[in-house]
């Protein structure tokens, strides 16, 4: 416990001071925080509950659009804003910007949660691959439909309010970094708290055998919906922050980007190790470093690299980094190893 406390304090101090130590990487670090949030929330679904979803991108994109719309719509007519494109016909004062952002983020987190609750009963009744394909369809449908709605910019995109003139680019980077780091800390604390309760055991029971869990008297549907709502809350929050950070929202390339972000969150969680607390964090970090390297050195070939990476990770490395460590050093994970049994197992193989 004491060791953990030191670890968490060290991470917190490092996290808070990171933008000042590495000022050139502020935007990258903010994106990393968002990615970790997405991987952690996907893990609640895919790792603990066993419901492999491609649909969390729905909440992410929804949060992104909602946050930006609220931020603009609170002070200016939304339709005219999107009509004028990137031109600065309306300018947010600093107070307006931060108020709008605060309200926008709350809305961006709450509305997707409600949406998840509403559609949860019908969608979460699906099992296995039907669920996976259905959520994939949901994400793509949301992208296609939002690309046809005029008031949020339709196909030409939506420019989020530019950061007000307080401290220039440096302040913008620090603001968004602290915001995303705050979201990360909030997510991590929540997820950690969840993982130490009975709720996590119920989710694991659903993953291992849903029918038996139901036969044991667990109202599986209720817990599945709650799990999904928690995911949706943080996905929406992450989406809202990411919208402000990127500064531009496009329906299929930024918000409901099933081809990038939607796969990234699955991949990060699998790379780190499904069903562990630290897995998604490690996976997202490794993935982000890897990805940025690829994106810089193989410009233009990044999707080819991404495709190959997905295939390799899924086929050869499905247990992830944590799973590999667990196999290598089971003692560290609190597993009692019976040497004789282990040898017998190896011989059997």
């Amino acid at each position, binding site marked *: 416990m004491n060791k953990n406390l030191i670890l968490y304090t060290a991470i917190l101090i490092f996290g808070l001071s990171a933008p000042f130590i590495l000022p050139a990487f502020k935007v990258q670090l903010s994106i990393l925080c968002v990615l970790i949030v997405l991987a952690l929330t996907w893990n609640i679904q895919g790792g603990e509950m066993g419901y492999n979803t491609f649909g969390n991108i729905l909440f992410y994109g929804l949060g992104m659009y909602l946050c930006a719309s609220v931020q603009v719509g609170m002070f200016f007519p939304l339709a005219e804003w999107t009509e004028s494109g990137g031109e600065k016909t309306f300018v947010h004062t600093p107070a307006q910007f931060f108020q709008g952002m605060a309200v926008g983020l709350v809305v961006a987190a709450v509305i997707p949660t409600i949406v998840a609750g509403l559609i949860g009963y019908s969608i979460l*009744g699906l099992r296995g691959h039907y669920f996976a394909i259905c959520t994939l369809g949901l994400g793509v*449908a949301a992208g296609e439909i939002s690309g046809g709605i005029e008031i949020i910019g339709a196909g030409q995109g939506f420019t989020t309010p530019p950061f007000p003139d307080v401290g220039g680019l440096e302040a913008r980077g620090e603001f968004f970094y602290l915001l995303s780091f705050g979201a990360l800390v909030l997510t991590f604390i929540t997820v950690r708290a969840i993982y130490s309760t009975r709720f996590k055991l119920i989710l694991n029971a659903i993953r291992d055998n849903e029918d038996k869990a139901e036969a044991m008297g667990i109202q599986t549907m209720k817990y599945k919906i709650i799990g999904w709502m928690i995911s949706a809350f943080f996905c929406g929050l992450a989406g809202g922050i990411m919208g402000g950070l990127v500064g531009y929202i496009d329906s299929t390339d930024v918000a409901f980007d099933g081809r990038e972000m939607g796969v990234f969150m699955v991949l990060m969680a699998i790379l780190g190790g499904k069903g562990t607390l630290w897995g998604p964090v490690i996976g997202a970090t490794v993935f982000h470093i890897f990805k940025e390297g690829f994106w810089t050195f193989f410009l233009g070939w990044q999707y080819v690299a991404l*495709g190959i990476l997905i295939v390799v990770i899924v086929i050869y490395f499905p247990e992830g980094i944590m799973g590999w460590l667990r196999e290598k050093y089971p003692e560290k994970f609190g597993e009692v190893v019976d040497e004789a049994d282990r040898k017998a197992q190896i011989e059997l193989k």
Partner: protein
Amino acid sequence: MDFMVFQYPMISVQACLDGILLGILFALIAYGMALQWGVMNIINIAQGDLVILGGYIAYFMYLFGIHPAWGVIVAPIIMYFVGVGLYKLVINKVVDRDLFISILATFGISILFMQLMNFAFGADVVLANSGYGTTFLFDSAVVLPNSKIFSAFVSILFAICLVIYMKKSKLGRAIRATAQNARAAKILGVDTEKVYAATFGINAALCGVAGALISITFTIHPYMGLPYTIRSFMIVIVAGLGNLPGVALSGMGLGVFEEFADYILGTEFRIGAVFLLLVLILVYRRFKLSRKREYLK
């Protein structure tokens, strides 16, 4: 929203005919999907990208001055080997595993194909002009391009050939046996590895035919693959595995639905409508199954 459809009945006739001709093409792709799903128990997200790749083969023949209709013969031959190669490289490692693994792995292949096609052929929307002209029906109220009629005819021809092949030939019997019980087939001397490779190859070849036809009738674009995958998945779950008349019928139904969605909601919502329909069908299926208190394994 546009309600022209209800005011002018001829537009409905047009939409129905267009939809049916389109749906026959979808049914051909869905047949490949059902084949590999039934035999190998994998869901191939890259299905649509194989279709588009087949389309580009026909398009390239068109660019080199060969009539694109010959693509219907050439594309399946090339695509068969692409399919077998893909099986040897990746798919054989996901056959016996969780379905989600196959979904994710083929998603990766799909992204890879998309980007490679984008590099090789450019991001333009292209079409191989067949020069078949058009047919006018009902005093020119309904306009049908002959290429659509040709594509529907060829699809039916290929589907019939394949059904006969599956019924009569030795490989067809082996494929059906493997689909019923892979282990028993293995015991009885069927080389299941070969059967799987052939199945995936046949699936890719079917996609090649469909792609060549699509490049003649409609347009192709490197990023257009995923909707075809989703359509074929939808057709298969509505019809059920191994129900061929059902696949044909639900394919046509989907085609008609799409044409009407196009007229009523507008073209920009067409793909969105397809994906929403998928969600609705799955949800309907879930409530229907839960009422019976049964579940599919």
